[in-house]
């Protein structure tokens, strides 16, 4: 009878929810573990907000990545786009006459859109493998960044610096410093943008026909075509959204670091992919969730912070722990999905 029960859980849960649940549970266990064993910083809410502040750009790009992955593709150009956007905006704000903040934002979104149009066209219309297309996209963006400006530099435009330093206080969650003065908890503007995007995309994926067609195309492209879904348009839009979000994410990143550099956002595409996977998106397509991706980013950065606060601050420890975590998540997913298949079969 116990057997029967297990079977029912697998029957009721669809793949997406099953993987999402695993992610959220593991994230909370990890965070609670950090609070209990490392205490100090982790027990303060600001620690959590700092994670958000530092990773708003990653959240945005990872969301775009999830959409492409759900529809069965991949985009490894996002890190390059982020670097290119930061550099272009930095050059515009610092090296032209009378720059305007709004225009710099338009530049960021414009670069993303352009990238999405070209990559979407190559993938959806010419049917070229997305990995190759975005690989070339990554090379191009990284190369262009150094062509635009080789040396890294800080932006000193006053309006921009003011925007960069804008802090939005979070009520009730502040803490008292050593002198007993109340320090309010805060988040940066980028975090608000990121949260809005998460909510918007969650709604799109869950309740719009476009969102559901991403899942359908990722689940079985041929079937989706037969069921009357415009597969080309869907794939095109998935790349368009992903690259545009990379553009927006690029601006948020720029807003956080306040500089342009060719080495910005190195390996961000891999972090975005890793976050999506940890959040329960399958690279085979058709399964995934934006909320999961959000928690994926949080899990990834929490582990980085745990490593850092444990005194293992050598850069190589971060690499090893992230890899180890990715490995564990992948193994859990692999085992759970295999179990599920078995349960359904018998």
């Amino acid at each position: 009878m116990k057997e029967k029960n297990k079977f029912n859980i697998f029957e009721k849960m669809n793949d997406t929810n099953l993987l999402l649940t695993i992610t959220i549970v593991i994230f909370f266990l990890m965070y609670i573990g950090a609070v209990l064993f490392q205490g100090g910083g982790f027990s303060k809410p600001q620690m959590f907000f700092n994670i958000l502040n530092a990773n708003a750009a990653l959240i945005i790009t990872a969301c775009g990545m999830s959409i492409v992955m759900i529809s069965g593709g991949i985009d490894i150009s996002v890190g390059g786009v982020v670097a290119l956007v930061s550099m272009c905006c930095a050059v515009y704000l610092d090296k032209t006459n009378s720059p305007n903040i709004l225009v710099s934002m338009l530049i960021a979104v414009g670069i993303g859109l352009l990238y999405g149009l070209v990559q979407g066209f190559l993938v959806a219309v010419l049917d070229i493998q997305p990995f190759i297309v975005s690989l070339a996209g990554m090379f191009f963006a990284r190369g262009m960044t150094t062509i635009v400006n080789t040396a890294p530099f800080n932006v000193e435009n006053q309006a921009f610096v003011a925007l960069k330093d804008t802090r939005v206080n979070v009520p009730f969650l502040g803490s008292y410093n050593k002198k007993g003065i109340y320090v309010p908890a805060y988040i940066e503007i980028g975090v608000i943008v990121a949260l809005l995007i998460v909510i918007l995309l969650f709604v799109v994926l869950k309740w719009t026909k476009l969102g559901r067609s991403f899942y359908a195309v990722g689940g079985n492209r041929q079937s989706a075509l037969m069921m009357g879904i415009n597969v080309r348009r869907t794939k095109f839009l998935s790349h368009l959204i992903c690259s545009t979000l990379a553009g927006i994410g690029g601006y948020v990143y720029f807003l956080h670091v306040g500089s342009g550099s060719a080495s910005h956002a190195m390996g961000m595409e891999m972090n975005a992919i890793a976050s999506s996977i940890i959040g329960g998106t399958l690279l085979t397509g058709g399964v995934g969730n934006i909320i999961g991706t959000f928690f994926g980013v949080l899990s990834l950065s929490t582990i980085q912070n745990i490593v850092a606060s444990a005194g293992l601050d050598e850069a190589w420890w971060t690499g090893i722990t992230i890899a180890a975590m990715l490995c564990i998540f992948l193994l859990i997913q692999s085992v759970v999905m295999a179990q599920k298949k078995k349960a359904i079969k018998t």
Partner: protein
Amino acid sequence: MSKQSKGNILGAFKAIASHQLFIPILALVLLAVVNLIVDPSFFEIKDVTNNAGYMVKSGALITILDYGSELAILAIGMTLVTAASGGQDISVGATIAIAGSAMLRVLCGGNSRPDTIQAPIIVAFLVACIVGMLCGAFNGMLVSIFKIQPMIATLILFTAGRSIAAWINNNELPIVPDPKFAYFGGFIPGIPIPTTVFIAAICIIIIALVLKFTNLGLYTQAVGINESSSRLNGINPTFIKFLSFVILGLCVAVAALIKVSRLSTINYSVIAKDIEMDAILAVALGGNALSGGKFNIWASILGAYVIQFLTTTLYKFNVPSDALAAYKAVVVIILVVFSAPKAREYMEMFVKKLNPGRKEAA
């Protein structure tokens, strides 16, 4: 009558154009022609005296053969992995760092500035081979046993590899004192051709023999095309996939030997950077489907040299190394677009529209 022969020629041309080696050869010819027009001295091979005082051959073509070696060697393993698993190994750059670091550790024995090497070079190389194969085995295990997609499975070593490499040598950068070690990535005294060319040639000959005298090719393709049928025909798909990753691990170790030997030391974050992307590109340029199945290893190897040809050409045109990637990307996209079946279809339709009478003639 003449119409018919014209049709035959067209047909023959089509057959050539659809051959797998067409795109890489066309790219090679185009690059050669561009160089010939812009600067014919590109093809000159001169005898010069190198730092060690020996007469060696020098010229752009030698550079291409020299620096294309690592890529050609990696392309062999990457083609097999692609064919068997339908995915790519993105950790080769990182595992080159690991294998190279292990080699240095053995050679220098944990001392960053030793006076003599602490172990014979062959031992260090064998250790690197074992390390490379272990990395391959780790990736292969995740892919074949746990059924994780190759790109994702190798993401783990991609993320951790360079950190592990640094950890092997306690984040120090040991320098190999023995000049003999530099032979592998440079010249052997008295021989005017770079050693790397011979190493690549040996690897290519070995894989040619393996493909001729074993069923590796047939099994790999069968597994890549239809895993379930292969199993019912007595093939063990799990093992074949695993094997392909281990072979790639071996290729990585050889590439690591060349890379480390070129400098006699290592830079963990820079060594073989982005080489996985070039290796994958070589496979794709060779016209092999990245989704696995049928493969042509010669096309991949040719693809590797095409990429190096392009890189060398760009350097000749004084493109700074950081901006190289952008130009490479443009060329890659052009090549891929031209070889995409869909794009060809559209082009044919376009030609037909321009010339509606041709259909009857053919």
